[in-house]
């Protein structure tokens, strides 16, 4: 976000704190994709993700007084979202979809306007693979991977969102990547590489 963007955001936040819904609407507009994306990647289902994203914005709206402007708004908002998603995952654990069942694809992947049908199919298949792999991770590993890959956060920022230390984040990412690699091979998403070793 540019400096001007931050200034605009600060104005919207100030107005939203005084109960201005239109100003908060600007914040929703600005952050709907990151919030929805983290919810979708965490929950693996577009409908639940949308509900989670709405709930996250409602919580942010009703708790704006507790937001500390010393921190980035996006960090605070994503923290609310991911905590809500982890709660949802825990609640539904017993009913969690089996990883053998195909997950419903996100509508955005079904209608990539510029891509042809073949490219769409490849994209959809790739995204389904990603979702299947993510579902094999424990929620806190999944959260770290999502923040790192889709939100390009630094270790410090991820640690801030997840309320933990940088070394814990490094460890989670390390274990998550190894676990994803193992699951990828087991599920046939990634082929076992043939390695040539220099003699």
């Amino acid at each position, binding site marked *: 976000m540019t400096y001007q963007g931050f200034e605009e955001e600060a104005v919207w936040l100030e107005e939203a704190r005084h109960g201005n819904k239109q100003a908060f609407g600007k914040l929703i507009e600005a952050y709907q994709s990151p919030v929805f994306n983290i919810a979708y990647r965490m929950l693996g289902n577009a409908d639940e993700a*949308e509900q989670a994203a709405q709930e996250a914005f*409602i919580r942010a709206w009703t708790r704006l007084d507790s937001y500390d402007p010393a921190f980035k708004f996006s960090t605070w908002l994503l923290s*609310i979202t991911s905590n809500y998603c982890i709660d949802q995952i825990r609640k539904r654990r017993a009913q969690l979809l089996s990883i053998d069942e195909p997950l419903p694809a996100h509508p955005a992947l079904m209608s990539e306007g510029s891509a042809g049908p073949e490219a769409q199919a490849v994209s959809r298949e790739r995204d389904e693979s990603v979702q299947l792999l993510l579902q094999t991770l424990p929620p806190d590993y999944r959260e770290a991977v999502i923040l790192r890959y889709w939100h390009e956060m630094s270790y410090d920022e991820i640690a801030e969102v997840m309320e933990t230390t940088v070394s814990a984040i490094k460890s989670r990412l390390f274990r998550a*990547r190894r676990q*994803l690699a193992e699951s*990828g091979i087991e599920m046939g998403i990634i082929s076992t590489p043939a390695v040539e070793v220099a003699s």
Partner: protein
Amino acid sequence: MEHADIYTLMMETLDGELAEERQAEMDVHLQSCPSCAQEWQTIMAVHELLQQAPILSPAADFTQRTMALLPNTKYRMYTMGAIYGLLLLVGFVPLAVVVWFGVQFIPALGQPVLVQGMLQAGSQVLSLIEAVLGAFWQGIGNLGGVLGQQPSILGWLLVLIGIVFLWGGVYSQLTRQQRI
């Protein structure tokens, strides 16, 4: 080089944090160690797969639908204010009505002697509260004196406070997901 060190270098490479000289070190190891080379290629495949997955957006009318769900905070504030005001009135109105009826229909209650007696009783209640608060304040002062003579009591108090904070921290970690 140990495998564990190589894993660290792999992760730093993926996160773009590996220095060039260490990159060469890793390359040399990967060329001579088939298991690490295999691990690296698998992890790289996952890394690339994740990097290609797009950021998704919700439906076009998401903002409007979410805004429609936002509770009206100003309305809520005014409503709560009105409820508290009403509760206050509910407490005072019956009292005022009883007093008014008493003065109107029981002439004895309007006698100056009785009013004076009631005022005296009120003043005695205030004196009593003052005495209790004074004793409490004096007690705190005495506690300071005792602590000065018996520093171990202070030590135990600090330990007690420490335990309370420790458990506060544990509780806060346990309920982290519910707080936000």
